[in-house]
């Protein structure tokens, strides 16, 4: 479960204090898929970065499966990410010096997992890239790179998958394949999926949509009847 309690993010730009995210509270239950939508600069990626422990909130607490990540240092956050969070980026961010197979292998090696090679091969097969494992990222298409990134995000079987504009850099057909993969992971494996997108069509694939504007949650809508939603901190 992901829980944000009065979380805000303020940055300094010279002498000006800029509020990127106003105090926000929300809870996302385990196994749900949530799309965070909004125009550029609305605070979507900031919110995702805070949930991933990539950034620290100015105020408030963030709990992942009951662990208050705002009290953890960088090293502990890194370990927590390796264990509980898989991240998929808009620009893929594969390691260019590693093959596709090795890119999938890395999180498991960091965690010291056993049977890593077999699992990496299985994950590549799952995303339909069994025959591309020995290729370097520069030898793969955008869609293939993103599928490798999804396989990598699943490597340690994390309970939470965070995706930042996962189709933003892909054509519509390839984007559709990628979103199908993510939704499949959410539904078949029961993993929590938080998806940042500005594309309403993409958001429609998730259980619920949270709309942000100017750093505030302005709308929260459920696509399916199931699920528990709790909101707070609204202006």
């Amino acid at each position, binding site marked *: 479960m992901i829980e944000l309690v009065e979380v805000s993010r303020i940055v300094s730009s010279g002498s000006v204090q800029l509020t990127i995210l106003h105090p926000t509270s929300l809870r996302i239950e385990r196994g749900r898929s949530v799309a965070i939508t909004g125009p550029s600069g609305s605070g979507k990626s900031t919110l995702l*970065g805070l949930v991933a422990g990539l950034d620290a909130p100015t105020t408030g607490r963030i709990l992942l499966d009951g662990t208050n990540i705002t009290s953890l240092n960088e090293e502990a956050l*890194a370990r927590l990410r*390796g264990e509980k969070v898989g991240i998929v980026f808009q620009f893929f961010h594969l390691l260019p010096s590693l093959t596709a197979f090795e890119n999938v292998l890395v999180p498991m*090696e960091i965690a010291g997992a056993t049977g890593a090679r077999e699992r990496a091969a299985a994950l590549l097969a799952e995303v339909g890239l069994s025959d591309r494992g020995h290729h370097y990222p520069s030898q793969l298409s955008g869609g293939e790179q993103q599928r490798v990134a999804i396989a990598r995000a699943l490597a340690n079987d994390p309970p939470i998958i965070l995706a930042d504009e996962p189709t933003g850099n892909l054509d519509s057909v390839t984007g559709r394949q990628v979103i199908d993969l993510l939704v499949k992971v959410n539904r078949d494996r029961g993993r929590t999926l938080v998806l940042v997108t500005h594309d309403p069509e993409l958001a429609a694939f998730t259980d619920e949509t949270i709309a942000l504007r100017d750093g505030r949650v302005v709308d929260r809508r459920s696509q399916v009847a199931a699920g528990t939603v709790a909101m707070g901190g609204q202006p």
Partner: protein
Amino acid sequence: MSFVFRMAWRETRSSWGRLLFFFVCVAIGVAAIVVLRSVIQTVRNTLTREARLIVGADVVVQTQRAWTGDLAPKLATVVADPRVLAHTDVVETQTMAQPAGGKGTGGLRLVELRGIEAAYPYYGAPEIEGGRAYTHEMVANHGLLVQPDLLREFGLSVGDQISLAGAPFTVRGVVARDRIQRSGGFALGPRVYVDLADLRALPLLRFGSRATHMVLLRVSPDAVVDVTQFARDTFRGDTVGVRSWRTLEDRIGRNLRTSENYLSLVGFAMVVLGGIGVWSVTRVVVQQKMRSVAVLKCLGATSGRVLATYLLQVGWLAAGGCGLGVILAAIALAALPQRVIVSLGVTAVGVTPSAAAQGIAVGLLVSLLFALVPLLEVRQVKPLLLLRADTVGTVRRRTWQSVVAAAVVLVALSLVAIWQADSWRAGLYVSGGLAVVSLALLGVSRLLVAAVRPLARSTHFPLRHAVVSLRRPNNQTGVILLSVGLGCFFVLAVRSLQSNLIHEFNVQLGANAPDLILIDIQPDQADPLRAAVAPYVRQPASLVPLMRGRVVGVEGKRVQLATLEDVRKQGEMTREYGITHRVSLDGNESVVDGAFWSTPLTADATPDGLDTEVSIEQDEATRGMVSVGDVMRFDLSGRVMKARVTSIRKVLWDEAQNGGFVFVFRPAPAVNRATQTFVGFLALGGDPAARVAVQRAFLAVAPNVSAIDVREVLASFREVIDNATLGVTVVGAVTLVGGVLILIGAVAMTKFQRLYEAAIYRTLGAGTRLIASMVAIEYGVLGLLAGVMGATGALVMSWALATGLFDIRWRPAPGLLAIGVLITTAAVAVVGLIASSEILVRKPLGTLRGE
């Protein structure tokens, strides 16, 4: 840990070619360390192993006087000691040699004569050509053994005759190898062995002649140290030297170990230069790897593991560089000409395990230390940059950790330097000097880059953009200027100094300056010799009387030294001096206190009952606290002379054409009675025929007289300077190569940015020629700045060395420096252009799509 190994391996796999390039710079430094240490260790091991063969005996006692007077009973005491098993006399002196019996070229040559007895030597007999064993019969009864050079020069062979001091000797053999060293100083000619009895019969060992009288002792094997000490105690207070193969072994070991350590610092400096390259490339690599680091952190890797990954990568690349360095060293040693190896006194030189280990250790340490500070930046990389593009180009922040790390690295580098020099002082000087020079050069490079900044407003498009490029992000300008500038500085400084020294010698050897010095002229030979050489000399021969004496007492205002022992205790004026007498000052002298006499003393004594007056050189008077009016006592070969100091002179030693003297006596009957010889100074000019003729002429009337050819000595000096210059130039050239490698690597590091820029320029209409001229101008400006830095440093260094160390007049060498700057500019421009060739040929679309 396995993750760290695997990631380091994968990272290396993709970029080793680019990175290893920088470790080639480290490899060059490591090779220098390994070569220098290996050569010196081999020489040291050989020499210390052969110390007894080099001395030829267990213990040697030697003096410049014959074993007469009070020395005789002391010598008898030493040789009578029961621990002394045998002893034999040896005398070394110089004389002129020429072919006899109407054969050969008719040349003349100063040779080093060694007169020996049947028992010589106890160890390490000379090896004779043709595999014959040495026996004393070869020299007995006017036989002689010579070195091959002399026979070649004279056009003679075994069985022919050579005349020494007017007496004919038969060449009985040629010495192929002679390990026994001379008693001291530099050899002025090839060595010739004669029987000591024959040498004593020649007119060469008269009182006052330049000869070294030695007694070689063979002692009980366990008594070498004790007998050495016993002999030293016995001859305490006399000018008698005592040495043994054990002391030689210690001295060789000590001296060569010091040389090894100090020379290794040259290699260390070069490794540090490579290290600066490693630091520079690591900095750029970290910038380029920021995304990868952020990804790893996103995937759960801690900063420590990421840092360990990259450190490990640096570690094994450095190990590769060090291994390459050892291979380079082995190749360099294998390529050493046999002539050089033999001149070192050894038969073969290879890489020694200890030298290889030290080289590798230094290379690894320096590489890791230099890589550590930039690598610490990975700790600051935030994984957030993967979500927010605006955090990618984060400004490099100086944290307390990086400051502490830099301080630790500096201390560690100093410790490596101290370890290499085996001396706190030398190590600290070198590391401090390197730090100061590097900071100064980096500072100067910034100033120079700032100085050319106005050119960025030039109307000339390529020049404007070339200057702007010097300040591009991640530019390597400072490092390139540092490395290329340093190499240029080495080469130009040593070349400038060489030109100054050679010019100075040429000035000293002016048209009318004496260029042949005759020694050991006996008083009765002075007038005949003067007449004999008169037809050949450009100005009348100057014959200067020479006495040898020591100060044995001073009754002065500031100092009272009653006995020789008191003089010794004072610690000044203790050596044996060459003393002359005359009635006028030489051209290089001036009186600073008192008055110099103008007439000889005709009375038997001065009015106050002294033998004569004396003038003393200013510095010696200051050190010995002697003033005008003091009375000094001298021992002139056993005759005591009392003289009042009546003047103190300033002597310009560099301009001494008739030698320079600390003490000058007023001529007086008592002075004339002292034993003396004359030294002749002849000005002949460079005509070789005249030089041979004059030597024949004086040998006819004074066969015992030896001649030192100043022109030959200066030629030898010049050779030494040339060799030293060559050595330092090689170091400079290697440094330059290192600089060029760093330059090529730096071009490679900024290649992607340059490719992108070139693609943009092309889309805006720039052609290959325009882009090439921009690149060429950029590197030309870089080369010009490096050349100016190097030339300025060379100018300052040559001035400092000329005036401070060599004490000669400094002359700037503007032509040389200008050529140096031009060559550096052209070289850097060409290398930059070649290294950037991909930028010039790549199609823009591919690059822009890639972006």
